């Protein structure tokens, strides 16, 4: 019977196989578009060097007496790693819009895969790219000291510090890519997404303690405290910095970890929700 003969081809589609192939596609596409690499990692490095040199001496971490303990560049280091993650996640979410407009998404939507695999593929792919780039930055940045572009830094070099930093980078990447997906799924033009980028995503980064502590103003310190990304940046900072005076002013580790975890989980759940509910691929 013909149906029996065909049934061998109808293997049960698996969530992980589908997610993985979608994630691999993200990585392959990225590697083939060199300009994206330069945009996502080059710009943050330039920011780090220029802001670091420009604000050198004008910076003091509140609550820390000794001004010599932490240079601005050192303070800014985790923030830049998160900025790299943010830029990569923005690129990933823009690709959601491109996939829809170029027709690729329709082919995925008619495949017998759970809708959550579509989310997982995008987020996983974006997160892998973000982590690799941020990790590269964290390895390369201290080396810039040797050519005079950065001050000497006193960074953690323990295994637990590296594992912790990787964990936080992964969670932040999943959260931010998931957040970007949420907007991108509803927006049908890349131009429209620029609004979200400059009004939501970049302010979110600015108000995360990544760039400045922001404790001088009451309203700002509240915004920073309410921003979930603050805890991701603080968690990453905790893993990278060794100075006990700095560690003392950061939120406790368990708070950082739980908020960051929760944020990633909420974003993922919301992504799956809107993808399942989507009544149609707008044509």
């Amino acid at each position, binding site marked *: 019977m*013909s149906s029996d003969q*065909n049934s061998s*081809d*109808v*293997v*049960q*589609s*698996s969530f992980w*196989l*589908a997610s*993985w*192939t*979608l994630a*691999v*596609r993200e990585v*392959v*596409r990225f590697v*083939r*578009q060199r300009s994206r690499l330069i945009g996502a990692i080059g710009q943050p490095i330039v920011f780090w060097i220029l802001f670091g040199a420009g604000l050198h001496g004008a910076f003091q971490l509140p609550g820390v007496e000794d001004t010599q303990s932490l240079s601005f560049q050192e303070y800014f280091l985790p923030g830049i790693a998160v900025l790299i993650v943010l830029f990569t996640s923005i690129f990933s979410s823009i690709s959601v819009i491109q996939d829809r407009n*170029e*027709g*690729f*998404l*329709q*082919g*995925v*939507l*008619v*495949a*017998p*895969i759970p809708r959550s695999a579509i989310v997982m593929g995008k987020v996983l792919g974006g997160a892998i790219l973000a982590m690799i780039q941020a990790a590269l930055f964290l390895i390369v940045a201290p080396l810039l000291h040797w050519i005079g572009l950065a001050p000497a830094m006193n960074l953690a070099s323990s295994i637990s510090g590296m594992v912790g930093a990787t964990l936080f980078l992964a969670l932040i990447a999943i959260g931010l890519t998931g957040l970007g997906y949420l907007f991108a799924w509803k927006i049908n033009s890349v131009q429209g997404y620029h609004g979200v980028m400059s009004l939501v995503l970049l302010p979110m980064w600015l108000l995360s303690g990544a760039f400045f502590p922001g404790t001088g103003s009451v309203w700002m310190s509240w915004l920073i405290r309410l921003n979930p990304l603050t805890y991701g940046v603080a968690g990453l900072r905790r893993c990278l910095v060794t100075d006990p005076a700095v560690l003392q002013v950061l939120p406790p580790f368990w708070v950082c970890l739980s908020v960051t975890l929760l944020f990633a989980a909420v974003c993922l759940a919301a992504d799956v929700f809107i993808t399942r509910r989507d*009544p*149609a*691929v707008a*044509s």
Partner: protein
Amino acid sequence: MSIVHVDQLEHSYGERHALSGVSFDVERGEVFGLLGPNGSGKSTLFRVLSTLLPRQKGIATVNGFDVSEQSDDVRRSIGVTFQSPSLDLKLTVGENLKHHGKLYGLSGKHLTERCHEVMSRLGVADRERDYAETLSGGLKRRVEIAKTLLHSPKVLLLDEPSTGLDPGARHDLWATLFELREEMNVTILVTTHLMEEADRCDRLGIIDLGEMIALGTPNELRSKVGGDSITILGEEIESLAEELRTKFSCDVQTLNEVIRIEHESGHELLAQIATEYPGRFRSLTLGKPSLEDVFVKLTGRGLIEAGEVS
């Protein structure tokens, strides 16, 4: 049971009714065409059948599965080719196929074999390592179709498959579709607004303003118009048309320097025109009515015109 079964299907976008009670069946192994102008509702119907839109009211099943309740079973039963290509242009042909196969749960050696099989069937095996963006429109469409065959679907759904193809590529595409039907016994459902394409189908449904206004083989549909159709090309068409109207008191249409007459016994009329108006025309032909004639007869509008209105 019919492989595609649609009964009293309705669909609306808010206030606007895109489908108002469409019914038809497609039998196993058939090449079935949905013919209609742009905005007729055929794309909505296509989207419901391909599980991209939920079924709102009425019945729609593919391979015995409900398109909304058992959408994953429907998805495994169909291979969908969209009007706008769903290839990833940054990937090679081979990578596109591998990727697609994995979405259908294929992997490893079996997937590789299937990829080679469908590539050679569609004649794109030599392009395996080329980036999709370097392919011509016709080849892209072939790769698309190859992709949809990977999981051996029972039904191929194609939305305006010859959009953007030159006549040669269009001809090849149809030859391929018929081969697939012969060799794999798949059922093929295409939407189109082109007469020439509709004419190739085994059976057709003509859809307009959300309703199925005619259903049958191209010949059956043509017989709705009845009689023969005479076409006259020439220089001073309008005056000739006027003379023919008074002389034979029949319906004479003129459109773009062409006279068209529908008549019960065209051959007799043709002979009369030929003997009585020598030298007044460049060519005089007798033929069966076209599907365009059928559409005009049923709706009072031309296909293109109807598409522009809506």
